């Protein structure tokens, strides 16, 4: 009951759905009250008053038809008929289609095969044609039109409900029910039916509007309701014969069909959004090409670093909640350096990396403060075309999951050539040659042939090499590698790291390496920035930090890393979870997990302080220092 209430509540918040529901409610109420309303007799002819135009003052507000019958009365009685036919047709289709679908899905095997082949055959006809054929056989008449429309929709229900049933049957509770000795009938009614019910409702909400349209269409062709009985479709069909002399006789019933169907579809869309998570995902936002920037001031440049990030704030703002994913990050890096950014999942390290070139997904991401400078040029205020000329040309990315970041339907060679040609005016042919050359550089054997492969034809490690080749394509000044080895297995990880390390020294590459693994970091990076809850809590040279971590969090993080040949060590874990980005405490975010914390840690902002020449920490009681 609670769930049903909440569904209704969600539906009420969906404005189009509410509009559709209220429209339908009015229409249904009026048509149900038809016998009680002060209407003319819908079938009373009055030849003296034929084809009267609509006029509010006369006794026939919508005018009369070719036999002088009152159109308003006929319209309201017609709505009754059309709605009834549409609803009954969809109930028949839903019940028989669902029964077939559950039956086929539940029993599987040959029954399933036979039923589904039959359904396929029926689906080989265009819908309307099949309905027409069935009416041709049964003969014209409203009831026959109803059957025809219902039968035509059975395959759609059968197929959808079968799919849902098969999915339910694979779940454990059905096995449990079977083991507890329930018979098939009880399993179907108790376990399966309630679970496929949402699918049935969704299928009904998609088809009912169509069924109303379709029965109206058959009546319009003269194959549905027969005179003197008239649904909206046959009213339209009759009116059509006098289209030019009395257009209102066609416009009015057609408009009514349209209003009913649009109301049904509005409501149906709302129901679908709630019940079908797959479709709901489709209504979620898609990221804009550029992260939104809403900041009050641009920080002044400090000095001649290659890349300088100052006080960067990237927040995720959605439905009133503000998740402070990046909450004041400063990074400086000089040409030729390799900086490692380390932190656990959700610490904001990837969002930091993506924010530099406006790639953090907006909505919901918004950069609310701070600045990013490449060789002194402010990037966050650059226009899109300027930023685009930097993306991939001056700063290139390597992402975490290579299979997901390469286009699935394009050969890797074409993807690398595209990266080249997008920044340099070279011919297709020479871009391809360059792409093969790059693949050679990242040690892909038989590069010329591999360039013609699609990503799914390569292993994860190979795909990551392709991504690295693509990042190298325009000899960028800086490469940002965002957990490039996390999705790979350990031996491949090692190969990729040694490749990056070799490329780095060969080409004097500047690298920002985002990771959660201290082991990798130690192999590759000169400097380390440790991130926690959206801020950098410690920053220094790799040796210095590994040898003398100053922040209690860093120390724990290093202890967490398993070390080769030291299996007998007890792995300490970090007790407690990092605070969620929308509930950051005042003061140090690590305070509640830290055994050195005091009241002071929970009060006010904590500044970074130097502990050595190249080493600073954001802590009041750093390790190895007097408090």
């Amino acid at each position: 009951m609670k769930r049903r209430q909440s569904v209704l509540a969600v539906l009420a918040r969906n404005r189009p759905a509410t509009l559709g529901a209220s429209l339908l409610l009015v229409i249904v109420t009026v048509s149900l009250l038809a016998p009680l309303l002060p209407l003319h007799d819908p079938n009373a002819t009055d030849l003296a008053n034929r084809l009267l135009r609509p006029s509010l003052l006369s006794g026939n507000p919508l005018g009369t038809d070719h036999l002088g019958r009152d159109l308003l009365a006929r319209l309201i009685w017609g709505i009754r008929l059309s709605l009834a036919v549409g609803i009954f047709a969809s109930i028949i289709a839903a019940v028989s289609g669902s029964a077939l679908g559950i039956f086929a899905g539940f029993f599987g095997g040959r029954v399933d095969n036979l039923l589904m082949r039959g359904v396929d055959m029926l689906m080989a006809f265009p819908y309307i044609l099949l309905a027409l054929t069935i009416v041709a056989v049964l003969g014209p008449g409203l009831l026959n039109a109803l059957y025809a429309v219902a039968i035509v929709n059975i395959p759609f229900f059968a197929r959808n409900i079968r799919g849902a049933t098969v999915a339910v049957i694979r779940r454990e509770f059905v096995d449990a029910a079977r083991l507890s000795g329930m018979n098939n009938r009880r399993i179907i009614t108790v376990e399966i039916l309630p679970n496929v019910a949402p699918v049935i409702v969704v299928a009904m909400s998609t088809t009912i509007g169509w069924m109303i349209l379709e029965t109206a269409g058959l009546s319009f062709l003269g194959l549905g309701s027969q005179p003197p009985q008239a649904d909206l479709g046959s009213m339209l069909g009759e009116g059509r014969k006098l289209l030019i002399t009395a257009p209102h006789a066609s416009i009015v019933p057609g408009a009514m069909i349209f209003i009913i169907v649009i109301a049904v579809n509005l409501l149906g869309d709302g129901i679908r959004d709630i019940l079908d998570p797959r479709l709901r995902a489709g209504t979620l936002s898609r990221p804009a090409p550029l992260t939104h920037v809403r900041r009050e001031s641009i920080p002044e440049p400090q000095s001649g670093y290659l890349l300088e990030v100052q006080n960067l704030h990237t927040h995720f703002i959605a439905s009133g909640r503000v998740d402070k994913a990046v909450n004041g990050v400063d990074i400086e890096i000089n040409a030729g350096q390799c900086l490692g950014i380390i932190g656990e999942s959700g610490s904001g390290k990837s969002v930091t990396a993506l924010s530099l070139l406006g790639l953090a997904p907006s909505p919901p991401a918004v950069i609310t403060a701070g600045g990013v400078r490449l060789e002194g040029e402010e990037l966050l205020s650059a226009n899109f075309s300027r930023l685009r000329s930097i993306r991939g040309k001056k700063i290139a990315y390597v992402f975490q999951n290579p299979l997901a970041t390469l286009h699935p339907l394009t050969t890797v060679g074409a993807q690398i050539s595209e990266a080249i040609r997008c920044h340099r005016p070279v011919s297709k042919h020479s871009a391809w040659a360059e792409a093969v050359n790059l693949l050679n550089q990242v040690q892909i054997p038989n590069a010329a042939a591999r360039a013609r492969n699609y990503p799914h034809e390569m292993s994860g490690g190979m795909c990551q090499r392709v991504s690295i080749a693509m990042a190298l394509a325009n000899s960028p000044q800086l490469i940002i590698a965002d957990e490039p080895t996390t999705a790979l297995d350990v031996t491949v990880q090692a190969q990729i790291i040694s490749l990056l390390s070799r490329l780095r020294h060969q080409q004097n590459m500047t690298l920002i390496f985002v990771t959660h693994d201290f082991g990798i970091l130690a192999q590759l990076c000169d400097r380390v920035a440790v991130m926690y809850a959206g801020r950098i809590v410690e920053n220094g040279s790799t040796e210095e930090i590994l040898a003398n971590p100053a922040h209690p969090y860093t120390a724990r993080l290093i202890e967490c890393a398993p070390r080769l040949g030291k299996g007998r060590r007890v792995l300490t874990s970090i007790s407690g979870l990092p605070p969620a980005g929308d509930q950051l405490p005042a003061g140090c975010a690590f305070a509640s997990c830290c055994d050195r914390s005091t009241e002071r840690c929970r009060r006010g902002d904590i500044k970074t302080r130097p502990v050595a020449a190249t080493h600073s920490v954001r802590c009041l009681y750093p390790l190895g220092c007097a408090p």
Partner: protein
Amino acid sequence: MRRYVLKRFLAVVPVLLGLTLIVFLIMALIPGDPATAILGSYATAENVEKINRSLGLDKPLAQQYLIWLSNILQGDFGRSYSLNRPVLDEVLDRFSATLILSGAAFLLCSLWGVLIGIWTAARQYGWTDRILTVAALTGISVPSFWLGLLAILAFSVHLRWLPASGMFAVYGGGGMVDLLKHLILPATTLSVVATGVIARLTRSAMLEILRQDFICAARAKGLPEHRVLYLHAFKAALVTVIPVLGVQAGFVLGGAVYIETVFQWPGVGLMLVQAISKRDILLIQGGVVIVAVCYVMINLMADIAQHWLDPRVKT
């Protein structure tokens, strides 16, 4: 690829057999006696038997089906009694008119549907998105036969821009220009519903794709946004859009029934409606079989196109 095409073609054979069987069975189920229906008041016992024998109706059902099947495979769909003309000749004449109409409508709906879908997905929640999303909803909800009547009232009766009915002008008609003038209203009307469906599904497919990692990666490469949208995202979305186009092709073929009636377009749809009212069973049979076979072929092409586009589907 070649093997896949061959395999798909072979898989179509049982579908076609099943389809003809369904048509045959439906027709065989007609209540009452076709001979009586054909003969009307001339239905003496002797005449009925003669007709039954000439139609092969005195044989068992299975045998009747096989005879019928082998006949239609040789192009013999029988003779339409209402037109007194071979069914195949009539159907083929009419079918070319239907193909022109639904082909034009299909071009319109795939072009506009896809463009509107991409456009709205790219500008999600902007005002163009809102307007076009409402337009797409309107499109799928409007009765096409009513829309056709409105179009006639507006463009033929009031503005007198375009002809209201037929395929060619009765006097001095013929030629491409005349055909196009007659085609504009019915083809546009026929395309409206399918445009709405395609636009809505393209939009949701695009939104799904635009949230994926490879789009972010494409942007990180520095590609211009139109390339990201129309090449990278749309290429991936096409895999979902192509089957939708296949289904809509069937919808346009079938929906032609209404539009041909409204605009008196001399196609299969109009023929079928007339044949139903005259109970000309062989004509109905022939028309339905031809259109359904055409629909199966269209879906076969959609399958092959999807396979060609998506190298991941290896079968």
